[in-house]
């Protein structure tokens, strides 16, 4: 099994200040179309880093390149001290991956899935056995250890995929949309587990379509579209840098008329989408007073959030 000690000869393993993952100017084209057009990434040990972008923005292609499963046309990648794709296999021995689409082994039980996956890392049977009982507990699947995969709920399957990604006790986790398709209970449980892993000192690289998820979990994030970086930073700092601090949404009957008559006067920045008027402001008190005086209008006054930023940067058009 590869270890970081081997990579650096007799020198000690990388210290805390060393980045866990560095990518510089990575690019990838398919049939003349540039899917990733110069992305830089740097993950510090122990942080949760979010990679956000609409469908087709280049997230999954980026993840595949970082893992050495797709060769970049240009750029450099260093994963846990190993050059990728050159030493991708050694690097992957310290990484855990939760894929977008479940690829659990349908021919096996819960326990067998963990056991067989541990063998792919070259772990000894005794090591795997010890690990498996710990992971079953972590995933709260002890009572289902001998169940077949088909009998598990969506949330259980997702927990098992996460547990499987931990079988080699990785330093870094790649999570590609880990909560897509889960019900609210299962999402909250997944978040709890990810927080617990961060507390243990694991580093996480996360892609998601849920802005609340990114805002809750990520220390830093990067928004990409068309293969390029649009913004990068801590969630609150990014929002503060790009969006007015308060938002008023006016919707339902009369919203359009209100927008035409009042928005320019009351809002710092404003947009109408369908039947909803979005009003972004530094101070919402005047606008809220105005809206309270019109009881037929329905409105929502809230803090600016990551979704506002995401939509501002990537636009509101539907993606195929």
């Amino acid at each position: 099994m590869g270890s970081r000690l081997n990579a650096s000869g007799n020198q000690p393993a990388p210290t805390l200040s060393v980045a866990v993952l560095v990518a510089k100017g990575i690019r990838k084209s398919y049939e003349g179309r540039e899917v990733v057009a110069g992305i830089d990434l740097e993950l510090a040990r122990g942080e949760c880093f979010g990679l956000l972008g609409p469908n087709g923005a280049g997230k999954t292609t980026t993840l595949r390149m970082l893992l050495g499963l797709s060769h970049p046309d240009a750029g450099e990648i260093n994963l846990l001290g190993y050059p990728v794709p050159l030493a991708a296999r050694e690097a992957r021995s310290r990484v855990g991956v939760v894929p977008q689409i479940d690829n659990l082994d349908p021919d096996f039980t819960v326990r067998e899935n963990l056991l067989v996956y541990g063998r792919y890392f070259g772990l000894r049977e005794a090591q795997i056995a010890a690990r498996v009982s710990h992971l079953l507990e972590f995933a709260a699947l002890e009572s289902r250890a001998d169940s077949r995969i088909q009998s598990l709920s969506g949330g259980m399957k997702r927990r098992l995929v996460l547990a499987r990604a931990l079988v080699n006790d990785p330093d870094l986790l790649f999570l590609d949309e880990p909560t897509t398709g889960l019900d609210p209970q299962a999402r909250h449980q997944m978040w709890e587990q990810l927080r617990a892993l961060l507390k243990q000192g694991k580093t996480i690289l996360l892609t998601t379509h849920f802005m609340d998820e990114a805002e809750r979990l990520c220390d830093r994030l990067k928004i990409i579209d068309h293969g390029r970086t649009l913004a990068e930073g801590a969630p609150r700092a990014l929002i503060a840098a790009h969006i007015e601090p308060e938002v008023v949404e006016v919707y339902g009957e009369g919203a359009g008329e209100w927008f035409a008559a009042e928005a320019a006067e009351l809002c710092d920045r404003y947009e109408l989408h369908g039947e909803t008027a979005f009003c972004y402001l530094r101070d919402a008190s005047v606008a809220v007073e105005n809206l309270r005086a019109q009881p037929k209008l329905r409105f929502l006054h809230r803090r600016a959030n990551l979704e506002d930023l995401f939509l501002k940067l990537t636009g509101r058009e539907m993606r195929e």
Partner: protein
Amino acid sequence: MKLSRGSLAVWRRNYLVWRKLAAESVLGNIIEPLFYLVGFGIGFGAMLPEVEGVKYIAYLAGGTICYSTMLSASFEALYSGFARMHVQRTWEGILNAPVSLEDVVLAEWIWAASKSFLSGMAVLLVAIALGLAQSWTMIFIVPLAFLIGLSFAGMGLVMTALAKSYDFFMYWFTLALTPMMLLSGVFYPITNMPGWLQAIAHALPLAHAVALGRPLLLGHWPEAPLFHTVVLAAYGVAGFLIALKIFRRRLLS
């Protein structure tokens, strides 16, 4: 060293799945050729004088070992391989671990050959039980079955690498394997066919397999054993290498 470790883990994964259904699988491997040999060999054989100096059922047995092995390797490399690569995304999961695509494809190749080897051995056991194999030369059928498995699994993996869906495999079975079964001397001597068909038959891997398997079962040494062995191995290795190239383009681009 590293290659073998990853491959071994993948091979063991497939073996563990097989073991769960081993009883049914082995039973099928034995019962099917038993009915087939007894039914075909005795019923059909009753109408025939001896073929090349032996009873028809004995003549048929050597060819049956070869083509059963061929079919078993092909089914495993095509249908089961495609399920693991594409439908179940099993390979995708494996490739996220420190296992390379080369490890995975090598394991699939050897696994399909291993499984077909059991199929070939089952027919051999049936032939022995029916008293059709009485010479020590049948020992060489053991490595031969594995070689036939490698040969057809290698070629089958090319089809798997190219396939968009299971439907694609019908071409391989109906346009390649079925005619091969009829032309390769499994059921009747190749020399019964017109010259131009004989020429085609001599290029077919199954014909080379039968040219080795039948005499070994009947107790005499095949002609040009090394030549036939090399042809079978060449088909297998070429198939494996071509398949690997296509898999790389398909999965690692």
